[in-house]
């Protein structure tokens, strides 16, 4: 019993500690992001890392999601002759939920891991100390561009995933399952509201912030050589994914 209470206590302390550190980091990010100088090249480079280079992964994820959703929901709806609603289900599920969440998880695995590993290596090889010793704020130089790239690129990738997902659903329904294309498109357009898309994009912004902050924080606090960098990377991906899933519930409850 005491062991259980101890365990719970330690867990709570760890969460509070974590939230505290992320909040402090966010505060520093916001403060330093607003001060000169702004080195545009750093931002563009990170947008490429987070955004452009994630396109193939996000495309495959989106396509697969849309296609599977169409197959599964067709199977279900067929039992009560509502096949024409497949388009609606695919569009709503993808834009409200699966587009942003799966994009978030994929980017956490790709770009988040890369951020934690790169900053972790910079930490253990004293490159972060070198930055600071030359009078350059490491948070401004390293974290701000990644944070900006995260909150800008995640929504862009999500729109992309949404489109490809809907396209995947269309292909499966119309080409393989013989749903009438006109009906499919009409059902999609009739029931999909712009607020469904906006909600999903807002989620994506939050996920972008989560991924970049956690990954940078883990990298910054990495210690103990190659092993430490490995641990920081794993922990960045796991923590980002967990927080994406947890915050997704609350965002959904709050938004819709």
């Amino acid at each position, binding site marked *: 019993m005491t062991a259980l209470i101890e365990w719970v206590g330690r867990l709570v302390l760890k969460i509070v500690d974590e939230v505290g550190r992320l909040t402090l980091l966010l505060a520093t990010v916001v403060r330093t992001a607003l001060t000169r100088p702004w080195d545009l090249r750093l931002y563009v480079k990170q947008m490429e890392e987070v955004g452009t280079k994630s396109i193939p992964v996000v495309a495959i994820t989106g396509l697969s999601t849309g296609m599977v959703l169409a197959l599964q929901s067709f199977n279900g709806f067929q039992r009560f002759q509502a096949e024409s609603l497949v388009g609606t289900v695919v569009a709503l599920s993808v834009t409200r939920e699966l587009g942003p969440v799966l994009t978030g998880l994929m980017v956490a695995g790709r770009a988040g891991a890369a951020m934690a590993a790169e900053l972790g290596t910079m930490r253990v090889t004293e490159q972060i*100390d*070198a930055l600071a010793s030359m009078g*350059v704020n490491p948070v401004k130089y390293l974290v701000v561009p990644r944070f900006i790239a995260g909150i800008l690129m995640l929504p862009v990738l999500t729109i992309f995933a949404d489109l490809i997902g809907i396209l995947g659903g269309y292909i499966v329904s119309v080409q393989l399952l013989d749903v009438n294309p006109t009906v499919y498109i009409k059902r999609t357009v009739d029931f999909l509201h712009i607020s469904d898309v906006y909600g999903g994009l807002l989620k994506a912004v939050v996920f972008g912030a989560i991924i970049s902050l956690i990954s940078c924080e883990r990298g910054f606090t990495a210690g103990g050589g190659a092993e430490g960098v490995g641990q920081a990377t794993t922990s960045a991906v796991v923590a980002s994914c967990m927080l994406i899933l947890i915050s997704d519930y609350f965002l959904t409850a709050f938004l819709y």
Partner: protein
Amino acid sequence: MIELQDLHKSFHGRAVLAGVDLTIETGETMVVIGGSGTGKSVLLKHVVGLLRPDRGRVMVDDLDVTTLEESPLNELRKKFGVLFQGAALFDSLSVWENVGFSLTQHTRLSPHEVREIAREKLALVGLQGVEDRMPAELSGGMKKRVGLARAIARDPEIMLYDEPTTGLDPIMSDVINELIVRLKEQLKVTSIAITHDMTSAYKIADRIAMLYQGAIQAVGTPDEIRASPNPIVHQFITGSAEGPIAVA
């Protein structure tokens, strides 16, 4: 003048610095010697404000580094040049971008001008034609020299060297030692170097201080240190396993 006053620092309950007092006069080279893990790097990081002490002060030209706000601290840091143990070159930048980094960040010089200055500084440390290489393509000795060129890029008043010769062969060590001595003579810099390489210490030091168990055990000129009656100092400089220093 740099003054460390009663510096204390603990990590996870383990005291690394336990009351360090040390004064470095303007223009002198102070070499801090001590075994691995005795807190030499920690000491050096306090001087440039990378670590904050639990207690004590670090005065650099009458400014207390330990309580400075971020922006005056960054101003003060422009006087410093730091050579890190593994050179700490930025992997993603080429050699000349590394050397010119602080110029790019803090001045309005054009890339062309920065490159020119980087080339000059690289020539000073005996490197030519490596401007466009990436750090990963350099040998250990070359990295150290590029790190040195980066540290002197803005003509610092104070140089900090973290194990400048560690991991280098004896000849390359001597090249680095020569460079450090030459920098002192040409640029009149105040320097703190930490090392456990006694050959290097004797060569570059005006005075040597021995750090052991979180405090300075002895300070003196190389000759005084050589003749020191202090058994801890004697054991360390002669490199003996026998003596008061516990060998873990």
